[in-house]
């Protein structure tokens, strides 16, 4: 029984030019104590799907259809009152920009205390005490001073730690980390990643980790969902995704080949995915990835494949999930053309 489960979620945005289907039938689930990594390019709807969980979509966004099951109840139907009780308490978030995500005019202490005072019946003193504990938990040097400081007096890494402290204040069941390290320097990113892992071990929090950096995913996630154009195109354990495996979605495959790895020899040409992500307002009719897919057939362009389980724990949204087969097919096609 998954702790948090999205079932065929559709989240749309109304814009002047039309309805943007940011999240277009997404389903994934986070099990207790595990980390689900969501990877995808900008505009793949990974953040939106996460924000839909907390129903924190800005102005013109709305959940069109689908279910978000958390501890068995559907958050899409929950009242605002219930949502208040869930946000920051049962499900909490860490955002990308530590620089702007903290309120510049309040001290760290006040912003931390707020969480306790909203979700737990505690006195200010008690709240401050717990805030201090949290700062210690996230390994901030001399926390007592930091409590009294304003965000702008802290470095990016420190702010992100404060954000984490704030997020974990009420021991949430689920922690949504939305590109938490993208804005940080590499060594600092490593610190934060490690910290998150450690804390996860300690309180058995489930993490929904969103990033576009495959490396980070590899470090953090137990399971991975690859998103493209508002859909999950592949979902499997991290070993399946990054390891040797007969099945994969062409997009995932492309990503893997396109990024240079430390062991990629110099001079060897990278296999780039041609073209660019389609504009959210005119998505292709069939498989969203078909226009950029080297394996694409007329079928791909015509009808849209569904996400289905190819092997246990491994879902793919593609007509030709088997690497070997599709490469062979393409070879044959090439030869056929040569023959002509």
């Amino acid at each position, binding site marked *: 029984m998954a702790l948090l489960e999205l079932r065929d979620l559709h989240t749309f945005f109304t814009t002047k030019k039309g309805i943007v289907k940011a999240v277009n039938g997404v389903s994934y689930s986070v099990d207790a104590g595990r980390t689900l990594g969501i990877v995808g390019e900008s505009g793949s709807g990974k953040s939106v799907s996460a924000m839909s969980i907390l129903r924190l979509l800005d102005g013109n966004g709305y959940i069109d259809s689908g279910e978000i099951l958390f501890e068995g109840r559907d958050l899409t139907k929950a009242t605002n009152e219930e949502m*208040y009780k869930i*946000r920051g308490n049962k499900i909490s978030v860490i955002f990308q920009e530590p620089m702007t995500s903290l*309120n510049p*005019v309040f001290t760290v202490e006040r912003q931390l205390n707020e*969480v306790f005072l*909203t979700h737990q019946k505690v006195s200010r003193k008690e709240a401050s005490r717990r805030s201090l504990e949290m700062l210690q938990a996230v390994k901030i040097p001399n926390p007592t001073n930091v409590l009294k400081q304003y965000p702008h007096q802290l470095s990016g890494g420190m702010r992100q730690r404060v*954000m984490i402290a*704030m997020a974990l204040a009420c021991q949430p069941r689920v922690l949504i980390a939305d590109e938490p390290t993208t804005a940080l320097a590499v060594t600092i990113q490593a610190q934060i990643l490690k910290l998150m892992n450690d804390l996860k071990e300690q309180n058995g929090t489930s993490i929904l980790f969103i990033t576009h950096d495959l490396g980070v995913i590899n470090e953090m996630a137990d399971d991975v969902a690859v998103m493209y154009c508002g859909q999950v195109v592949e979902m499997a354990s991290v070993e399946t995704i990054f390891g040797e495996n007969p099945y994969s979605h062409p997009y995932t495959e492309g990503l893997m080949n396109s990024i240079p790895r430390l062991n990629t020899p110099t001079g060897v040409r990278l296999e780039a995915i041609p073209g660019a992500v389609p504009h959210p307002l005119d998505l292709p009719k069939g498989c969203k990835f078909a226009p950029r897919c080297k394996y694409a057939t007329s079928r791909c362009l015509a009808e849209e494949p569904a996400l289905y389980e190819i092997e246990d724990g491994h879902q793919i949204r593609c007509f030709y999930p088997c690497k070997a087969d599709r490469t062979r097919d393409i070879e044959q096609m090439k030869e056929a053309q040569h023959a002509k």
Partner: protein
Amino acid sequence: MAKYLIKRFLYMIFVFFIVSILMFAITKSVPGDPALKMVNQQLASTDPARYQIALEEARQSLGLDQPLPIQYVKWMANTLSGNFGFSLQYRRPVIEVVGTPMFNTVALNLCSLILVFAITIPLGIISAVKKRSAFDQAVQVGSIIGYSLPTFVIALLFIYLFALKIQIFPISGSATPGTDYTGLQRVGDYLYHMALPLLVSTFCSLGGILRYVRAAMIDALREDYIRTARAKGLREKVVIYSHAFRNALIPIVTIITSWFVSIFGGSVVIESIFLWNGLGNTILTALRNLDSALYLAMMMFYVIITLIGNLLMDIAYCIADPRVKLQ
């Protein structure tokens, strides 16, 4: 902070002197001889000799016989020592003359300041939160019209409506003539007379400030930390009134003072329409009677107000925004 204040203060003094020289030069270029006002004009016909002498004495007493730089220095010295010279029109030292007007003006403007913010802040917040709602649109258009209408037009309109058609307020003045109220009665009468000018000056300021508050609020609501606050599970009220508004306050605070200063100047019109015995009115009458000492003092007062206003603005800004450190 202290360092900053000192630095700023020195700068203020510098500006003050520059402006004072300017003002002095301007007033000195006034045609007509103020000494004439001091001398009994009958003498001219009856006893020209004595008239001339009297005139000379007057000139000397006003220090008009000395070269301009010396006059300036003298005047400055006096001004700084609190002696703003002698009002020819009231035949009393300026310092005695300006007391009441100053009080009246400050009273009027302070009240309108309070009223304006009492009205605009809630309105601004609501229309910012309900962005592009019908309400917001209405507020938008209303505010544009509001800040476009000239003060005196509003004044005439309000007089027509509230003093002539529905006679609930007095047309002008700052006290009912022929009455010698005391204590509360007097205050009541005072407020009763202030009502209409107050109404007008408030109404005129609404539009501009409202737009400003709204803009500031919208900017604040766009920030990432608002999303964070929501994600913490804070109630929408808290998010808006504590987190967003506290940030919107920063830009708002900074305009309060500058705007306050400007309405000081702007209240000239209102005062003259409602014959409100304030600085504006005084300066006008002083100008009409070429009472140089008086309006010179007035001008300097305005300058000081402006300078202090700017200083207050900086301080307020630094208080409102922890990121700003005055040094």
